């Protein structure tokens, strides 16, 4: 007996069944949404909730991310870095990687600066920025001899310093915001509106960019490209 049509029918029913359910009525959350909108004064309510209404939570998240990147540094501090890292060599691929790095860098800046206006925010911007730096890291080996170890160490120390300063600034600004010190609101929907939210987004983007880049970079240096 051929059961194939029955199997196909079963799959179709299972996949399509959720579509038969009605969506929840949109009107029930209206009061909550307008309350949030007046409270945060930004069009992107998600950003508003993350960086104003629930700022305590986000503060702890940033600290958790910092601890994670510290953890990677500590875990690998005992090991020897690889003497040679295989990078990309193909010139055509290098050109495309650099183009990708430019575009992801622009996306990162857009997500950070306009995270309060449209979907985006510091974490997403940081991931995009980290991708840009990661692409440049892949490209670097194809562009000539690597810099001296002393230079690498100095630039790593500088990166770590900027990262720490970004975290400290984030915590300081977050406390100002939690204490109720506010910047002028600006006009609703403009880049320069939203009070502390823009600044917090940018600081978070810097932190996550450098943190994720540091982690990726360390794993590549100690464990090699997968």
């Amino acid at each position: 007996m051929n059961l194939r049509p029955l199997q196909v029918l079963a799959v179709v029913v299972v996949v399509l069944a959720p579509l038969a359910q009605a969506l929840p009525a949109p009107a029930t959350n209206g009061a909550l949404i307008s309350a949030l909108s007046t409270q945060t004064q930004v069009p992107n309510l998600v950003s508003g909730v993350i960086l104003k209404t629930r700022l305590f939570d986000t503060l702890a998240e940033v600290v958790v991310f910092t601890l994670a990147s510290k953890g990677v540094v500590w875990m690998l501090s005992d090991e020897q870095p690889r003497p040679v890292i295989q990078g990309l060599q193909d010139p055509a691929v290098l050109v495309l990687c650099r183009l990708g790095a430019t575009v992801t860098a622009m996306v990162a800046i857009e997500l950070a600066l306009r995270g309060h206006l449209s979907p985006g925010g510091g974490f997403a911007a940081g991931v995009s920025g980290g991708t840009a730096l990661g692409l440049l890291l892949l490209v670097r080996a194809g562009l000539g001899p690597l810099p001296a170890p002393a230079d690498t160490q100095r630039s790593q120390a500088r990166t770590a310093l900027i990262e720490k300063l970004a975290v400290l600034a984030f915590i300081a600004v977050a406390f100002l915001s939690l204490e109720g010190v506010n910047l002028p609101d600006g006009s609703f929907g403009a880049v320069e509106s939203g009070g502390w939210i823009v600044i917090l987004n940018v600081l978070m983007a810097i932190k996550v960019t450098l943190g994720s880049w540091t982690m990726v970079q360390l794993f590549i240096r100690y464990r090699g490209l997968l």
Partner: protein
Amino acid sequence: MIGAAAISPWLLLGPLLTVAFRLAVWLLLTNDLRAVNMGVGLGVALLLPLQRNRRLPLRQLALAVRAMLAAFPQAFREAAVLITPRPTQEGLAHVPGSGRRSSLLMFLEVFTITLTPLSICLGMDRADQNYRVHTLTPVQGR
């Protein structure tokens, strides 16, 4: 004085194109033409590091742009060929390129090859500056 005279205005064309490209990406991302946003975009475009400056091979660029424009109707023809079911044969071709002279030129060449559905650029041989291209050729008849 000699140093100042050696800087030709053509050398500025490369950075100018780069900055214009970044600004265009910024405007496409933000969809906001107000002065504040344009200023931010221009600042970002200027602050991102610029590549080492080389003179653009203008003549070759013009040829590459022409080849790219010619590839568009070709791409539609090949897409129509792909829609009709017919046997195809795979192959590996070597297309001569202009080498590492300019990133923009290399991008245009790779884009031209990859735009047509029946050919895709796999990479570049470092030595002889050819692109390795994977091709599909429709087989006539059976």
